[in-house]
């Protein structure tokens, strides 16, 4: 799938933006800055998704990843990290040895990956020769499009339709499992984030530990267990 024209231009813009934002995510001093840079990186990647013809995934990325996960990140940063700024300069990187070793191995890794991609791509081209078709080519058999969109500049694609069909038919089991995974994650995160008071009132604290904690915080003793 070779991009060309404006699509190539947008590809390069968003690609560079993603990389740049990613770099700044890792190098930002402030955690909130890191989060915002990550958001921009994610949005750029979503644009790249659109360029690959995966509109639905791009939408999901924006909604879920940026709109859910990153907001959660920001909440947690506010909960735990607010004091860091006010204290002044803290080191954000680990000790020298760790950083050096990490960078060395990362460079090796990137070199390896680039080399692999470049040598492997020739073989890939041989395997799938018809991939030269343009994405925007509307005559391409895979690019069946629907009716025109609202502005009239392009047609609506069938990507969502196809994903929905596949997801609920061929990938329905993983879908259900994923939903259970999310349920477990919800329960788990609620449980993990309980305070001692909440745990004591739900009678989930070991009696010995409770005695210790009561010694420190007398209010706990006033709690009545909600369950018998």
């Amino acid at each position, binding site marked *: 799938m070779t991009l060309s024209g404006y699509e190539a231009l947008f590809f390069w813009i968003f690609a560079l933006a993603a990389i740049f934002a990613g770099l700044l995510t890792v190098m930002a001093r402030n955690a909130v800055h890191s989060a915002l840079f990550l958001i921009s990186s994610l949005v750029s990647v979503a644009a790249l998704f659109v360029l690959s013809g995966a509109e639905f995934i791009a939408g999901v990325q924006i909604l879920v990843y940026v709109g859910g996960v990153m907001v959660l990140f920001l909440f947690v940063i506010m909960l735990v990290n607010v004091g860091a700024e006010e204290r002044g300069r803290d080191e954000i990187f680990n000790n020298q040895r*760790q950083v050096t070793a990490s960078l060395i191995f990362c460079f090796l890794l990137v070199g390896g990956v680039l080399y692999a*991609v470049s040598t492997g791509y020739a073989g890939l081209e041989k395997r799938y020769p018809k991939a030269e078709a343009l994405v925007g080519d509307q005559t391409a058999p895979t*690019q069946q499009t629907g009716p025109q969109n609202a502005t009239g500049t392009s047609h609506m694609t069938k990507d969502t339709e196809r994903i929905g069909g596949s997801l609920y038919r061929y990938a329905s089991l993983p879908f259900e499992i994923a939903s259970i995974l999310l349920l477990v994650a919800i329960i788990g995160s609620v449980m993990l984030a309980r305070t001692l008071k909440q745990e004591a009132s739900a009678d989930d604290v070991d009696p010995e530990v409770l005695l210790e904690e009561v010694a420190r915080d007398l209010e706990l003793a006033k709690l009545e267990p909600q369950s018998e």
Partner: protein
Amino acid sequence: MNMLNCFNPAFMFLFQETDGSRLGLMKHAALNPDLSKFLVIGALLFIIGVAGVLTRRNIIVIFMSIELILNAANLNFVAFSGYLQASGHVNALAGQLFAVFVIVVAAAEAAIGLGIVIALYRNKETIWVDEIDLLKW
């Protein structure tokens, strides 16, 4: 599209046909990015994420780097999906499907992980990972 016609000269320069020379090839490769560029971008994002995981002290930033890694993987999946769609492969949509699940898992993992961070913060009052070294000999 009409408004963009003013850029036509630059476009004409940029979008002209290439010759067989090395620079031309490179120009053609640059002007017509294909799957390999996607993969390279994904790899670079991955590397950046790994570097972030290994070097930052702040736990939250480490988690965000992990999200970067997952994103790079997603990019890989989707790039291949698009490529295979273009080449008419029967199972081309698998990449996008997988990307959906990766996003789901990433969301769940982020929730749990941040729950752990909060519990850790309540007990140790710190977010610097090098202060959480109870396993040290």
